[in-house]
């Protein structure tokens, strides 16, 4: 079975696009092969700085033969019709087969199509496959209309060791590739994959990115270990570095001691973003070590000492820039920078960053009051939370927002809780990030997200489908996690109104604004309920239960909502619960059917004087007591007890259905019984909307 080897060799492909490029090329090639009946045993793709490679094993030598049957006119049809058919099928009458069906006998043309040689098919599909490649960004380079991520230089393509001839972007395919740009610049002739991989390795190119990562990880760990240090894991950086080198050579360099007083986050970010260095730390401690690992793409004759010296020098330059920002920024307190936030636009329809700070302050004040936290500290932290955005360091390294604010606040002599709250207020940054747990940090983190959710929603930036440019889903999930993980009791509706009211201050029509704000809050509660479903799905909570409780309306206290949902879940799992649910559905169905038939709605109190049978009277009495008890229990948030009370309804309901006929001839009696059933629905709906429960 022949194997295919394809390598597309170009100038340096951006690291972040390599894996995606290989996947896309494989997808297109595999699709084109199977479209043409060329089934294979295995395909594997590889990506590196200068090449995308695919090896396809076990292709057939040719396409399978296909025979196609085409139905023609009836036997004995007019001559012209038969002639036309023969012409279109390209055969003569004696090559036709006769078949019959219910309508009689007719001609059938059996056209045999011999499968073409795989090599020919490949030569035809490969230029099209390359042409269909889509890169995140692509370019022209004076080779006609062809586009690739960077200029192409050669295409290697062999089937069973022989060149598959085709042309793309003015390049003829061949059996030549090249090794390391500097260590082995000569041409390499290749026949098959194994030979290709080996010859590349001899020419200082590690083909497989997984292997390059292994080398980087293993060798840097060893070198760090020899110094009593360990490498700080950074998988995103490892991915990037493995895309920048064909022949990885980790080397250890030294950070000038003069810079070791900079915050460790600054050192690490500067090394990472600008220089792609890995940071090191002592094995037993958190402290950053004064060493780094740089991954070179060459085994230099001097063991890399010049390379290390060069990298150390560049790092000194970078860090002296960071040092400049650090010194400069600390000269002016955060509080003095607030006015500058006025000229930073938060959103064209949601004011400046300063407006945002004012809104966060008002939300924080309300939250602190409701939670009974230190209001002065919460408001102070909210006020300073965004001030680091206009510092030099955050201008240079936006990812240090918050982190720098914390350092500068400590430097300004702010309270530690205030500084920590500034540092933590963007959290949680993702589903796995930790949630703030100190009171002041909780308040500011929550206020920050409530403000962006409410005001950006108002500005028309609601997430749709895969689009969520302002990460409002993340903000929503953040709000939920902060509330639930800290068991915070908060009414969301009035809280969400706070930033909206502040944003509305300068609008003319106050009344219309208020109505609009209420509508936004209603939408936001629905949005948060959806997010809650997503958040709780992970722990196995059914989304229909959340919906059953949430759709009652008026429940905007997430802690209470979740407690109700959990109680409801347990109730439905009990035999009483399952049974009562069945009875509920029966009752609701009957009422619905009769309402439809009579064209009216059965709601209201049944008349006690019309209750004839003992089962009716028992149910009526049970509903009245249960209702009162449930309301009292709900008011005290005794959800389990409320569910237990409801469970007590099961017996009278079952009895009722056993012994009472609802649809009797006496219309007054019938109406009263329907009202009794509808009453059951009402009473049950005080705990949850059971019609939303599935299964």
């Amino acid at each position, binding site marked *: 079975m022949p194997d295919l080897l394809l390598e597309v060799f170009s100038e340096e492909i951006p690291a972040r696009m390599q894996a995606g490029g290989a996947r896309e090329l494989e997808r297109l090639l595999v699709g084109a092969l199977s479209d043409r009946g060329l089934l294979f045993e295995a395909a594997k793709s590889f990506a590196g700085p200068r090449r995308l490679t695919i090896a396809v094993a076990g292709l057939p030598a040719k396409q399978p033969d296909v025979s196609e049957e085409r139905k023609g006119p009836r036997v004995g049809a007019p001559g012209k019709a038969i002639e036309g058919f023969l012409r279109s099928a390209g055969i003569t009458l004696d090559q036709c087969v006769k078949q019959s069906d219910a309508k009689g006998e007719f001609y059938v043309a059996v056209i045999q199509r011999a499968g073409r040689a795989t090599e020919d098919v490949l030569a035809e599909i490969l230029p099209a496959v390359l042409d269909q490649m889509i890169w995140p960004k692509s370019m022209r380079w004076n080779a006609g209309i062809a586009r690739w991520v960077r200029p192409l230089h050669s295409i290697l393509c062999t089937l069973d060791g022989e060149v598959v001839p085709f042309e793309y972007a003015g390049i003829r395919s061949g059996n030549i590739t090249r090794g390391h740009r500097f260590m082995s610049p000569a041409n390499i002739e290749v026949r098959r994959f194994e030979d290709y991989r080996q010859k590349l390795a001899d020419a200082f190119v590690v083909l497989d990115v997984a292997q390059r990562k292994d080398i980087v990880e293993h060798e840097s760990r060893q070198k760090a270990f020899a110094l009593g240090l360990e490498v700080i894991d950074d998988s995103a950086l490892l991915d990037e570095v493995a895309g920048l080198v064909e022949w990885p050579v980790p080397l250890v360099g030294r950070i000038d001691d003069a810079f070791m007083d900079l915050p460790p986050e600054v050192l690490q970010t500067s090394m990472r973003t600008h220089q792609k260095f890995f940071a090191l730390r002592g094995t037993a401690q958190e402290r950053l070590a004064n060493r780094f690992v740089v991954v070179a793409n060459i085994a230099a004759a001097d063991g890399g000492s*010049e390379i290390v*010296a060069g990298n150390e020098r560049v790092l000194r*330059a970078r860090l002296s820039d960071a040092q400049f920002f650090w010194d400069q920024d600390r000269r002016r307190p955060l509080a003095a920078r607030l006015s500058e936030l006025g000229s930073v636009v938060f959103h064209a329809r949601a004011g400046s960053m300063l407006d945002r700070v004012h809104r966060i302050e008002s939300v924080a004040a309300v939250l602190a009051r409701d939670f009974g936290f230190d209001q002065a500290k919460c408001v102070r932290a909210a006020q300073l939370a965004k001030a680091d955005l206009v510092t030099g360091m955050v201008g240079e390294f936006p990812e240090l927002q918050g982190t720098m604010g914390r350092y500068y606040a400590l430097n300004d002599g702010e309270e530690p809780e205030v500084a920590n709250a500034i540092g933590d207020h963007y959290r949680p940054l993702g589903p796995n990030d930790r949630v703030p747990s100190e009171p002041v940090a909780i308040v500011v983190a929550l206020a920050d997200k409530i403000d962006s959710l409410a005001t950006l929603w108002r500005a028309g930036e609601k997430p749709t489908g895969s689009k969520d440019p302002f990460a409002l889903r993340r903000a929503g999930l953040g709000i939920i996690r902060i509330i639930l993980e800290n068991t915070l009791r908060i009414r969301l509706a009035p809280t969400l109104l706070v930033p909206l009211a502040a944003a509305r201050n300068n609008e003319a029509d106050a009344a219309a604004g208020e109505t609009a704000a209420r509508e936004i809050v209603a939408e936001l509660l629905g949005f948060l309920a959806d997010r809650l479903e997503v958040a709780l799905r992970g722990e196995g909570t059914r989304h229909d239960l959340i919906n059953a409780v949430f759709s009652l309306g008026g429940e905007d206290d997430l802690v209470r909502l979740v407690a109700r949902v959990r109680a409801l879940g347990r109730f439905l799992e009990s035999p009483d619960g399952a049974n009562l649910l069945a009875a509920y559905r029966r009752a609701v169905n009957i009422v619905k059917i009769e309402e439809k038939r009579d064209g009216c709605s059965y709601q209201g109190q049944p008349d006690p004087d019309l209750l004839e049978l003992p089962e009716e009277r028992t149910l009526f009495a049970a509903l009245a007591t249960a209702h009162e008890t449930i309301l009292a229990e709900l008011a005290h948030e005794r959800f389990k007890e409320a569910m237990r009370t409801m469970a007590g309804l099961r017996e009278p309901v079952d009895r009722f259905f056993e012994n009472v006929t609802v649809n009797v001839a006496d219309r007054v009696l019938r109406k009263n019984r329907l009202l009794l059933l509808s009453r059951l629905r009402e009473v049950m709906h005080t705990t949850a909307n059971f019609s939303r429960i599935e299964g």
Partner: protein
Amino acid sequence: MTLQTFWAGQGCMILQPYDVEMGAGTFHPATALRALGPRPWRAAYVQPSRRPKDGRYGENPNRLQHYYQFQVILKPAPRDVQDIYLNSIRAIGIDPLHHDIRFVEDDWESPTLGAWGLGWEVWCDGMEITQFTYFQQVGGFDCDPVSAELTYGLERLAMYVQGVESVYDLAYNEQFRYGEVFHQPEREFSAYDFEYADISILSRHFEDAENECRSLVGAGLALPAYDQCIKASHCFNLLDARGVISVTERAAYIARVRALAKSCCEAWLASPQGAYEPRIA
């Protein structure tokens, strides 16, 4: 000098710096305008570049508001332009077998010129020594053929070759240091850029240049119009450094300069684009 000799050997004309303040060598009409249209072009030149925002009062050993770029433009881009480039750094004494030379993704975009291209920053032992760009568009017009643009930061290269830590310690020759020439200007111009530049005068200059550019484009004078466009761009950079431009205004200013650049490029494309027939006597 070595670079000039090297690129002259590659068929480049060695041009002189353009005499209008600009943020980068790309703004020189020999690059920005010549990258457009079908006519071949090869040129190299040094261009002083002014970036008011990068001023550090002479306190930062690596950042300057005024520095020199060595710029090469090759149109059409030769197929082996990467190899030619590597020979140029070998010529200035950097041996790729002893150093770690890398082509790291860096796509270039100039929102004010309405220009973009794909390419890399070239690293030598972690230091960016060159910007390498394949021009795709200038002034919103496709570049066909595609040009290759190489920009060397001269101070950086010199620091590397001389092995000094501060730009001001560079030896200009045996007798003088870079700091003797440029330290005082850095201090004074930083003060001008950040503190003393007169906002109302600059705003007026910006508008004057904008109006002049428009009327020159109307007269079909692409090159003088383009001078005004570069001037407007520099005024904008100064205003930006003074910190008086808000985010929204900033976008509006950039759009205004881009509109000028686009109209200049259009006028250039409508012109003979430098075609010249020697008169036969």
